[in-house]
């Protein structure tokens, strides 16, 4: 083992430990009596338990032992362990759908099957295929086919009817048979298939079926005046059917049935009001108004004191749920839980999102993208139990453990070790639960803010917008670039470049959209193409991190003017992301700000800034005992 000879025997071994929302990081250094610091190593592990609770001890001990082992030091050599004063910012998330599409009387089928048959627009009366034999020749007919019919039989019956003079102009099928039937018809007609609840299609009604050519979208049924022309509607009725037209936009095929009072409504669900208190005022804002309006209101109430949701509404439930989770985490010093009512929400980030949801009243499992609002809320409490963690760490390691300093200031201290950075410097700590900003002016004055919303919210947005239903997969989509596996030996990256491989890919990734993890490609179970997944991923990151970067920096910038900032250093786990730093840098570039990812100690990247800052602060304090 043996101590390195550079290390004077009088130097004390100090470990800075930063317990964050998702990772616990440590920085090991030898501090000489004159305050000079020799860094010996850094490491990180997953945070155990919720930040600021005694559960953190296990993770803190693990990372300390780990970093000591790698530096070749024994735990009993440690003189002091420094812990961060975790400004206990705890964040919660909630999401609520605010619109709902309802189809009444089965007026519309717009599920966009992948393989409709034939093409063109046809209008006729709906008749079940079972009654086709008895149908008198003459008026145009749209044939409706239940699930148990075989495609050969359908074609035979329709061909027979057409031969008798019945004008079968289109067909609606339950099974996935449209191309098969069309290929067997003597006179091909537009056919829409995979209508699961075909038995609910009203019979004896006028219906229009439209199928566009491959690669195109329908033109008539997705246009209000097109519908009016097809069905001979008056202006009042045209107004009523315009939601139908809107709902069908972008489809390759559609069926619209004209029923006496059928309708498609795009209903706004009453979600309730947010009650915001701050700056001596109280304002109410309807969540329906959308994220932009909510954020504008919050900006008028800085600093925010508390947020409530109107009781008995969705938003009331959302915030109550956030409070309840936090109540479990926050405890008084004596260990008793803090009552939820006493928890003050100090910041909220609202994000507009959409949730793919099955349309109520739909016949074919139509999916509509319903609008939703996601809220990230942040709670601050003075009752951190970090001292308890410090006591336990001290006991287990047999070293002195103390709370070293406020996180924001420490982060700035660590960030200053990045090559090329000077005061005044602002840091943006892009974490899992909150985005923190701190500013150190030329005179050494430090201000710090925390805003709600960070990596966890991005994961949640990706998860719900892509309907993945799996947090792990969403996390993978967030962290890694995408590619499409085109053969067993090559894939196409999201920027279009092709890469060939010597070894074949495993069969389960063949032909799939994958995320390129360090362990190899992992398939993403989605019916969306690569471009769509990429767009959703970038939009989610932009809506959370770019918005929050600007919001947080405005709060610390002198006079809320971003131009007053010179250097911005990005820190935290999300600063390791392959595109978030560039998204933020692009946004900040017009303000003449130097923005980049931190490189703590010139080696550690955006990690361990707080832990390093703790050691630096400790060394500075010990060299001038008065401080």
């Amino acid at each position, binding site marked *: 083992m043996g101590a390195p000879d550079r290390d004077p025997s009088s130097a004390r071994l100090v470990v800075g430990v930063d317990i964050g929302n998702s990772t616990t990081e440590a920085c090991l250094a030898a501090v000489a009596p004159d305050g000079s610091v020799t860094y010996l190593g850094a490491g990180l592990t997953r945070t155990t338990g919720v930040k600021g609770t005694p559960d953190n001890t296990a993770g803190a001990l693990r990372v300390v032992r780990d970093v000591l082992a790698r530096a070749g030091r024994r735990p009993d050599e440690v003189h002091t362990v420094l812990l961060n004063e975790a400004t206990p910012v705890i964040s919660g998330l909630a999401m609520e759908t605010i619109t709902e599409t309802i189809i009444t009387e089965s007026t519309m089928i717009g599920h966009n099957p992948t393989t409709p048959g034939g093409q063109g627009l046809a209008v006729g009366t709906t008749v079940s295929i*079972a009654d086709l034999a008895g149908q008198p020749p003459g008026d145009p007919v749209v044939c409706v086919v239940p699930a*148990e019919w075989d495609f050969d*039989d359908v074609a035979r019956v329709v061909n027979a009817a057409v031969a008798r003079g019945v004008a079968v102009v289109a067909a609606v099928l339950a099974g*996935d048979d449209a191309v098969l039937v069309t*290929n067997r018809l003597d006179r091909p007609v537009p056919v829409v298939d995979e209508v699961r609840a075909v038995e609910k299609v009203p019979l004896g009604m006028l219906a229009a079926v439209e199928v566009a050519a491959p690669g195109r979208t329908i033109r008539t049924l997705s246009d209000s005046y097109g519908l009016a022309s097809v069905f001979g509607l008056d202006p009042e009725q045209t107004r009523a059917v315009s939601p139908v037209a809107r709902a069908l936009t972008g489809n390759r095929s559609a069926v619209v049935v004209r029923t006496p009072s059928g309708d498609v409504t795009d209903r706004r669900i009453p979600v309730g009001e947010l009650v915001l208190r701050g700056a001596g005022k109280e304002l109410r804002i309807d969540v329906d108004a959308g994220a932009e309006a909510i954020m504008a209101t919050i900006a008028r109430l800085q600093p925010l004191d508390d947020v409530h949701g109107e009781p008995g509404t969705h938003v009331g439930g959302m915030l109550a749920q956030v409070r309840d989770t936090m109540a479990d985490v926050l405890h008084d010093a004596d260990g008793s839980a803090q009552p939820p009512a006493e928890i003050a929400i100090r910041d909220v980030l609202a994000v507009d999102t959409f949730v793919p949801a099955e349309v109520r009243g739909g016949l074919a499992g139509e999916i509509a993208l319903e609008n939703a609002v996601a809220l990230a809320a942040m709670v601050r409490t003075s009752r951190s139990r970090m001292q308890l963690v410090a006591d336990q760490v001290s006991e287990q390691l047999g070293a002195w453990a103390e709370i070293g300093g406020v996180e924001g200031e420490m982060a700035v201290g660590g960030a200053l070790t990045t090559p090329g950075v000077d005061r005044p410097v602002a840091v943006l700590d892009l974490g899992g639960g909150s985005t923190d900003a701190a500013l150190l002016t030329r005179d050494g004055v430090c201000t710090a803010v925390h805003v709600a919303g960070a990596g966890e919210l991005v994961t949640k947005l990706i998860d719900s917008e892509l309907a993945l239903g799996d947090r792990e997969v969403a996390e993978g989509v967030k962290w890694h670039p995408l590619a499409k596996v085109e053969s067993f030996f090559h894939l196409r990256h999201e920027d279009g470049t092709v890469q060939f491989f010597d070894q074949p890919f495993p069969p389960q990734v063949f032909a799939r959209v994958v995320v390129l993890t360090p362990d190899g490609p992992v398939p993403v179970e989605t019916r969306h193409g690569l471009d769509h997944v990429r767009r959703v991923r970038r939009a989610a990151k932009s809506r959370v991190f770019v918005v929050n970067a600007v919001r947080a920096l405005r709060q610390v910038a002198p006079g809320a003017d971003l131009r007053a900032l010179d250097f911005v250093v990005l820190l935290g786990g999300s600063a390791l992301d392959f595109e978030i730093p560039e998204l933020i840098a692009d946004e900040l570039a017009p303000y003449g700000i130097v923005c980049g990812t931190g490189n703590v100690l010139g080696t550690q990247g955006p990690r361990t800034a707080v832990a390093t800052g703790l050691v630096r602060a400790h060394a500075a304090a010990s060299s001038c005992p008065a401080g």
Partner: protein
Amino acid sequence: MTTATPDRTVSLRELSPAVRGTRPDEVVIAVSPAFAGHFTKTIVEVPHAEVLRQLLAGIEEQGVGARLVRVRDTADLAAIAHIGAKLSGSGISVGILSRGTTMIHQKDLARLSNLELFPQSPLLDPAVFRMIGSNAAQYAKGESPQPVPTRNDQMARPRWQAKAALLHLKEFECIEAGRGPVEVEAVFELTDAG
């Protein structure tokens, strides 16, 4: 109504020695030595005519072409499917044994690997064969189909193992060693059972 689905029978007319296809929009269906020959039904009595019709329909619905090939010198599903894949212009094949066991294969895969395998022949009904055809065609088009949901029945093995073994033995007897795969044409005939 007409769903007294008339019984269809199929016979496979041998055309010529099978050659590698050149069209990228084709899927090869490779059948075992005794398929639609010595045997006419799967282990659960699904007529081979219906199996082929549904596989072909699934492929046709996706706008992809299909070619039928009979492999004569082996009764091993992986080998049959892999031979089919190597003959397929798209590199995608569906291999099938007389008892119904089915596999989607790709030419670049190792022989004993596969894209999708449906090992429990007693659980395969016409609807599943349709989905298998549809998925094979989607792979040929370079799309990413969701794998066909495979059912699993713990009792299938004990219940059907003896019959499966007998069927396999019979299939094995139909092997014509040394004879290469042959391209065949499916001739469907309606036999009104009623």
